[in-house]
């Protein structure tokens, strides 16, 4: 199994979720994060003084998957999350050694 982690623009979440559910992936975990990257941050001006906000709001979407779904899912997320602007984010994959469903105790791919 793999754990696919996508850092995306916040407003693409609904798109990504729909893309995933439409391909039968029914579980994911989302975290509010702040990203630093080429996109740079932005500046807010209060009473004439500039305040630099270096970090941009992003969402991290984590999906645990059987190995054979990884490529599809990455492709789907990429498409659903892309706006073409700098700051669209990244997708990372790590190997998942084990998974377990708390409610039932099922393990492995059955737990996903």
């Amino acid at each position, binding site marked *: 199994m793999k754990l696919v982690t996508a850092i995306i623009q916040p407003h693409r979440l609904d798109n990504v979720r729909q893309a995933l559910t439409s391909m039968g992936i029914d579980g994911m975990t989302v975290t509010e994060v702040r990203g630093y990257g080429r996109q740079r941050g932005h500046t*807010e*001006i*209060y*009473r*004439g*003084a500039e*305040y630099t*906000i270096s970090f941009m709001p992003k969402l991290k979407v984590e999906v645990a998957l059987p190995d054979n779904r990884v490529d599809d899912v990455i492709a789907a997320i990429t498409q659903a999350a892309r706006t073409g602007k700098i700051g669209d984010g990244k997708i990372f994959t790590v190997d998942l050694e084990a998974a377990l469903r708390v409610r039932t105790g099922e393990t492995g791919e059955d737990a996903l």
Partner: protein
Amino acid sequence: MINAADTAWILTATALVLLMTLPALALFYGGLVQAKNILSVLVQCAAVAAICSVLWFAVGYSLSYSGDGDWLGDGAAIFLNGMGRDTVRAGTHIPESVFVMFQMTFAVITPALIIGAYVERIRFAAVLLISALWMLIVYAPVAHWVWGGGWLAKMGVMDFAGGIVVHVTAGVSALVIAWMIQPRHEFPHGIRPPHAPWMVMVGASLLWVGWFGFNAGSALSSGADAGMAMLATHLSAASATLVWMAIEWIKFGKPSLVGAVTGTIAGLATITPAAGIAGPLGAVLLGAAASCICYLGVWLVKRVMGVDDALDVLGVHGVGGALGTLALPLVALIGSGTGHLNHVPLQQFTVQAIGVVSVALFSAIATYLITRLADMLVGLRVDLEHETLGLDFATHGESGYHMNR
């Protein structure tokens, strides 16, 4: 004789002015600081209100409003001694108890305004000590000079609701303390933006409403004077709001909420000394000028002088109060302004200028000494670790927001 209608209005006005400190100013300032310091600002407002109220009762009122010495009131009204339940305040038709209480809310908000200068880094003991001494040593005498029959009153200075007494004293003193306590450690480049601009706006809105009591209440009666003062106050605020917004829109392409309401406060502070003298047209013009000049004021203090007057007390209140005081002779003559001055216009302007400058100097020197004393007795500043951690937890043992499940 007590006039029940005048009394009804001043009772109401008193409630409105208390609202200005608690919670209006607390919210206005609280929203401008970082989330980790929000509570410290609120405690400071509450504590300053409490301590200055008790001191006003004990000595402040007597120093300001008892007797007619040039420099200071006498001690006859200490602990409100001799004030019966039915005593009428001379020159008005309201009970002295109501006059004491109304003026108390002024003696509370003025030191509370200064909080904006030193937030996010001051020791709480220094806040209490400085505020208490400042109210007795700066505010009470100046109130006596201008409103209690002291030397400035005798000279004919005009200050309807506190351009000099409230805003110049607070603004100048704020600068001095901000300079003495030194900038916040991230100043100027690492400073974080206001943590809750919505809260700033709510505070400013309540200040706007409360200012009706502040200015129209300063008529000390219900009727045409109070009515015109309220109208002038409102129009100045409205016009200043629009102008500050316009400045930002032109300069940055984005008119901000914090900017708009900063304009509101500038307009309110500026009309204060002239509220009972200006007519509607004068008020609109003065409000417009307020935003232009105070915008410059903020920029001068922070960018040019490099003093971390954190929430712009001098730039907004001090500059506004001085502007309104100096513009008063002109404004009185515009539209349906009263037209009544104590002197011919140019001479009145000179007198006003003497008032502003002398009070500014006095405030600066006295505040310097008070702050030195406070530094020696309790220390001005928390250490860097506490500053980094935030005063809410470091000083008060609390956290502003416990949103976690």
